[in-house]
C-alpha cells in the first residue's frame, strides 16, 4: 500500500447499515477506490473496527446511545474531514421517531407491554444507555460534509468520495439530493 494514500474510516451508529450496503453497489469502483485510498477501519468490508488516525471519517446512523456518542467523538478526534452519511446521520432519520415520547415509556411499551409475562426492560451494564433524545450527528459533533439519502445511491456515494479525494467538500445540488 502506498504511503501517501488518504486514509478512510467508516462506522455505523444506530442505523440499518443500508448506507454501507449501498456503498457496495459502487461495484467495480471499489477496485479503483482501493488504489486511491486506504481503508483504516470499516465494519462491513474489513475486520478492523477500531477507529485510528484517518483523513476522512464517514459516519452512518443516528446517535441514540452513549456508545454512539463515543464512536462519533472518537471519529471526530481521529479524522480531518467528517462526513455525515445518509438521512439518519444528516437529519436524524427514522430513529428520531422515539423523540415523540418519553424514553422510559417507550422501553416499557416495547419490552413489557408487547412482550410476554416474563419480559422486563433489559438492564445490564453491557448495554449502552440510551440518550434522552435521538440525534443527528451534527447535534453532537461538528460535521464537515453532508451526504443525505435513504440510502444515498452508489453514484452519490461515489460522487462524494471523488470530491473528497479531489480535496473538496462535497455538496449535493438539487439534481443529486434525494432523501
Amino acid at each position, binding site marked *: 500500500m502506498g504511503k501517501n494514500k488518504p486514509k478512510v474510516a467508516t462506522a455505523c451508529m444506530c442505523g440499518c447499515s443500508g448506507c454501507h450496503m449501498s456503498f457496495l453497489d459502487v461495484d467495480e469502483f471499489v477496485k479503483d477506490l482501493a488504489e486511491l485510498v486506504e481503508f483504516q477501519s470499516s465494519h462491513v468490508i474489513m475486520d478492523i473496527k477500531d477507529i485510528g488516525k484517518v483523513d476522512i471519517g464517514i459516519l452512518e446512523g443516528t446517535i441514540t446511545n452513549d456508545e454512539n456518542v463515543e464512536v462519533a467523538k472518537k471519529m471526530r478526534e481521529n479524522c480531518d474531514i467528517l462526513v*455525515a452519511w445518509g*438521512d439518519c446521520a*444528516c*437529519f*436524524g*432519520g*427514522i430513529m*428520531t*421517531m422515539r*423523540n*415523540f*415520547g418519553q424514553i422510559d415509556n417507550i422501553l416499557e411499551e416495547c419490552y413489557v407491554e408487547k412482550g410476554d409475562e416474563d419480559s422486563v426492560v433489559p438492564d445490564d451494564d453491557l448495554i449502552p444507555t440510551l440518550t434522552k433524545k435521538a440525534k*443527528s450527528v*451534527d*447535534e453532537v459533533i461538528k*460535521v464537515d460534509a*453532508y*451526504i*443525505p439519502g*435513504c440510502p444515498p445511491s452508489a453514484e452519490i456515494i461515489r460522487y462524494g468520495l471523488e470530491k473528497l479525494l479531489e480535496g473538496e467538500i462535497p*455538496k*449535493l*445540488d*438539487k439534481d443529486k*439530493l*434525494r*432523501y
Partner: protein
Amino acid sequence: MSDVKFNVDGKDISARKGMTVMEACEENDIDIPKLCQHEALENLMACRLCVVEVNGKQITPSCGLKVNEGLDIKTQTEKLRKYRRMILELIYRCENHYCMFCESDGDCELQDLMYEYEIDRFEYPRMFPDWDVDSSHNHIVKDTNRCVRCGRCIRACDEVVGNQTLNLGGRGITNEVIVDSGVPLGESTCTSCGMCMQVCPTGSLSNKHSLFKGNKDECELTKSTCLSCSIGCCTDVYTRTGHLVKIEGTDIDKESGGQLCERGRFKPLVDRGKRISNVIYRENGEESELSLQEGLEKAASILGNSNEISAFASGGLTCEILDAFSKAMRAHGALFDVVGAKRYRFETEVKRRINMIEGHFINDITEVMKAENILLYDTSIYNTHPVLASYIRRAASKGTKLITIDAYEDRFWNHSDKSITIESPKTQLTRLVNQVIKEGKASIEDLSRVSSILGGLRVHPEDVMEIVNLLEEASYDIIVIGCEIIDRWSLRHIFELAKLEGSYVISLNKASNQYIRSLETEGVYEEPEVAYILAGEDEENEDMIKLVENAEFSIVQSSKKSELTDKADLVIPSLSTFERNGTTIDINGKKKEVELAMEPKGEMRSEIAFFEELADKR
C-alpha cells in the same frame, strides 16, 4: 382589460390589471416557489415561500401582490433563497416528515422544494410534536405529522366542494387542520370526494387504496372520462403493471376545480369484486364452464328460439358498445332499454304533451351557481351527481336560496334554507304550488281550507307558500330534478310549474352516457322469455335484478361477480370500465373520449366484435 408593464428579474413583462405577480410570472414561465397557492383556489398567503423583492426594499408574498405599473420584482436573489430555505426548514421542523416511508415520497411539493433549495442539514432543532394519525375514514388517511398548514384542503373543501368540513383549529404549535368541530374524519360531514387529498402538497392526506403502490412517475397516465354519472368529469387514471393505482380529477380550469366524487375516485379502487373470466352456463342446478365462442353460440341459439326478449344495458357504457349491443339485440327482435332511458322517455313525452319548449331546459349544470334561487326535487343527487351537488352547495353558501324536497333525509340539510320532507309523489305539493300561482296569491288560510277539503293531504300550506315565494321573487331560478323521480305526474307538475314561472329546469337521469337521448329505447317485457343484461357498472341496479328474476332464461354479461351473475342462467364475461375505449356523451351533449387504461384481462377482447358476431348469428 388593460395591460400593466413591469419588470421581473431584469425582464420586462406585461400582465393584465388585477392579476397577481405570481400569476403574471407563471404566464411568463418565471418560476416562483409555492406551497399554499393552488390554481383552483383563492390565495391565502399562508406559506410565504413565494416571497419576492419589490423595488429593492420590500419583501412580500407574490401571490398576494397585485401587478402594478413599473414594479421592479426580483424572484431569485441570494437573500430570498436564504429566507425561503429558512421558511422551508421551519415548516419541516414543526412536524415529523419522514420521506422514506411517506406515501408521497417522489410526489411531494415540500420534498421538491427541499431539493430545489438544497437542504442537506438543519440549522434549527426539530420539535417532534406527537400527533395521532386519523385513519377513521374509508378512503382517506389524515396525518398531521406531514401537514404544512397550507390550507389547501380547507379551501378546496369550502370553495370547490362547498362542504366546509375542514377547518383550522388550535393556536400556535397546537394549530392543526380539524374536521368539523374536531371529530374523526370518518364520523364527519365529509362527502368523501377526496378533493382535499388531491390538492394536498404533501402526504398529509392520502388515498388508503393507493398507498405505496407507486408515485406518479412510476405509473402510466391515461386521460379519460369518468362514467359514474352524466357529468362526465375528466380523469387522470394512473396504472402500474396493468393495475389501477389511483384516479384524479383534471378540470382545474373549469368550474369543477378538478374535483371528482367518491364513486369516480374511490369506487373503482375498492369495489373491484371477483372477476368473471369464463362463460358460466347453469342448467338444472348444474354449473358448467364454456369457452367464449361456445358462450356466444349458446346465447345466439337461445335468443334465436325466443319470441319475447328483453335487452337491458347499463347507462355507463360507451356509445360504441351501446350501439353494437342494441343492434345485436334488435337483430334478434328484442325490446331494448338502457338504465335511465325510461326517465328520459317520460320527460320527452311530458314535454310534448304540455308544449314545453327546450329553452326551459339547462344542460350546463354550472348554471346553478348563477341562479338566484334553487328548488331541488330529490336530494339523492348528493349520491348520483355529486359534482352538481357541490355546485348547489357552493351557490347556497354564497347566498342562493335553496329549497329541497325529498321523501327521505335531506342530504343538503346544512345548506338548504328550507327542507320539505314529503313522501312520494311530490305531485300534490307541486300541484298546489301551481294552483296558488295561477289563481293569484292565496293566503295561507285559503290553502289550509283547500288542504282540509282534500283531506289526508300531507302538504303543509307554509311549504307551498315558501315555494311560491321562492319562485316568484327571483328572476333567475332553477329547478333541479333528481333521477329518483320517475313518475309522469310528478314530472308533469314540475314542468308545468317551470313553464308557469319561467323557471329553468335541470333534469337528471341515471344514465352516465347521455347517448340514450339519441338511441332508440322502449319499455321492455317485465316477464320475458329471455332477459339479456349488459351490466356495466350498474350491477346493483334493481330493475336489472328484477328482470333476471322474472325471466324464464337470463343472460348476464358482466366483468365481475355480483347478485346478477349469481342468479343468471348464462354468464358471459365483459370488459371492465378501464379496459374500454370509446366515447361518451355528457349531460351537456359534449362528446368525450373514454380511453383504454388497462389491457383487457381474460378471453374477452372486444365487446363490439362479440356483439357484431352475435347479430350475424341471427
